[in-house]
């Protein structure tokens, strides 16, 4: 095993990919836990679709796709949040329109751009080990570092807002600002993660580790810590494994995370059977 790891670390591109995987494995569940708490688990998916237009815009304009993706994804995320805030029943449909617009716009723009090709598009949709440049690693490190520090600073307030928005307002918290901040952080996560997991699977890395963690623990803080561990574990294992299997890393990362979920669910059900909970007293 040790020799294998050394073997992997011999390659510059693998060192970059593994570092990126580590950061993405932390950032994605850290943001995802609040989206799940708010019961907006699919928001990452929506942002991923919208970000594709941003990537394609980068190709078309000849700028770094990461930069255009983060801007377009953030605008999309804020739009989604504003629709949610209105609380209209048609919000659902409005979100769907945004998602489809994002994919269609991305495919159209990439067709128009000189450097764009299907292969390029695929590497953004499902991740690609060789595509993580050293410039990307710098961007990923700065963005995910800033994201984790931000959440560390406002985590308590974010918990309160995502738990019960009205109560948070009556506590005098800046609810709207925090909601918009979370939307922007989700957009940043999607952009940071797209080189590693890909836009179509990024949402899974935000949600599945959280779902796995909450099978086993009782509290929010414990869920966060366990979800971070599952996130890092699956991102790093998936990237390393995809080198040997020669596949897109995104798929393997998500399958490892789903495996962790299955194991957690199994363990949880065995534990429940062994000690019938006093929790199950009648209402």
């Amino acid at each position, binding site marked *: 095993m040790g020799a294998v790891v050394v073997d992997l670390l011999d390659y510059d591109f693998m060192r970059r990919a593994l570092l990126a995987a580590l950061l993405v494995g932390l950032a994605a569940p850290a943001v995802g*836990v609040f989206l*799940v*708490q*708010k*019961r907006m*688990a699919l928001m990452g998916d929506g942002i991923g679709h919208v970000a594709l237009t941003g990537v394609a815009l980068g190709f078309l304009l000849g700028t770094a796709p990461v930069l255009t993706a983060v801007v377009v994804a953030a605008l999309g995320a804020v739009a989604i949040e504003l629709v949610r805030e209105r609380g209209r029943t048609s919000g659902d449909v409005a979100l769907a329109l945004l998602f489809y617009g994002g994919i269609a716009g991305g495919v159209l723009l990439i067709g128009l751009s000189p450097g764009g090709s299907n292969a390029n598009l695929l590497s953004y949709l499902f991740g690609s080990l060789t595509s993580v440049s050293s410039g990307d690693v710098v961007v990923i490190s700065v963005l995910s570092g800033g994201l984790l520090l931000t959440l560390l*600073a*406002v985590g*308590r*307030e974010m*918990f*309160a807002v*995502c*738990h*019960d928005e*009205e*109560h*948070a*307002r*009556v*506590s*005098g*918290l800046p609810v709207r600002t925090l909601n918009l901040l979370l939307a922007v952080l989700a957009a940043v996560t999607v952009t940071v993660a797209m080189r590693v997991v890909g836009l179509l699977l990024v949402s899974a890395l935000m949600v599945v580790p*959280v779902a796995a963690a*909450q099978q086993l*623990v*009782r*509290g*929010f*803080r414990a*869920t966060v810590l366990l979800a971070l561990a599952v996130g890092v574990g699956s991102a790093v294992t998936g990237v390393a494994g995809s080198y040997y299997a020669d596949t897109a890393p995104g798929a393997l990362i998500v399958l490892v995370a789903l495996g962790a979920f299955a194991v957690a669910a199994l363990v949880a059900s065995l534990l429940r059977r062994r000690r019938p*909970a006093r*929790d*199950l*007293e*009648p*209402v």
Partner: protein
Amino acid sequence: MLDGMSSPAVSLTGVSVAYDGRPALTGVDLQVGTGEVVAVLGANGSGKSTLVRSLLGLVPRTSGAVELFGTPLARFRSWERVGYVPQRVTAASGVPATVREVVASGRLARQRRLRPASAADRRAVDAALATVGLAERSRDSVGTLSGGQQQRVLIARALASEPELLVLDEPTSGVDADNQQALATALAELVARSVTVLLVAHELGPVAPLLRRAVVMAHGRVLHDGPPPDADHLHLHDPDHAHPVHQVEARAAWGLS
């Protein structure tokens, strides 16, 4: 503490609220003095929650003025003085949280941003848990508690900021007798500390003895404001057959109370 002592805790003058143009509250006047304990009664859809939500600034008014502790709502910032128990069926959300984590979130109104919780913060959370009788369950996941226990978690969350005004929206609906009694005990303790209480209820049950005054709502208007209607008629012996609120409405409308 400027002019707060002499002003009423809550003051609504001619407050109207509409949802999509449909009036839900029409010209409501209500003053609640500091230390008063007031019940808001009325049938489903009569506007009780809207009344409470408008005085907390959670729904926009179409007209009228609201003051909390003598300060117009738009300029009110001392939210640590207000505890709110929203009308909810559960205290859980999409991710598990312990009872203590939920209750501690109620302390944020008094906490400095970006600072860790102080010893005083932790004591206040302990005290709030003790007041509702859930100290033993503080490490359990809220989702595993019964409905009545979850209501008590929401009350403890409101108490964590040590409020002077407590606004509760139907904390007793769908709650068993033991939990209603626990709630009444907690409220009695607060009343003894001269906390101002505005309690929305469908039925009064064990809290009835704490009340001097009740406001009865019907169709978005205040139908009655005065001594609580006869406790016997409010006590819900058989939830499937009694219609206490209708009796209250009728008695109030005929001037019987």
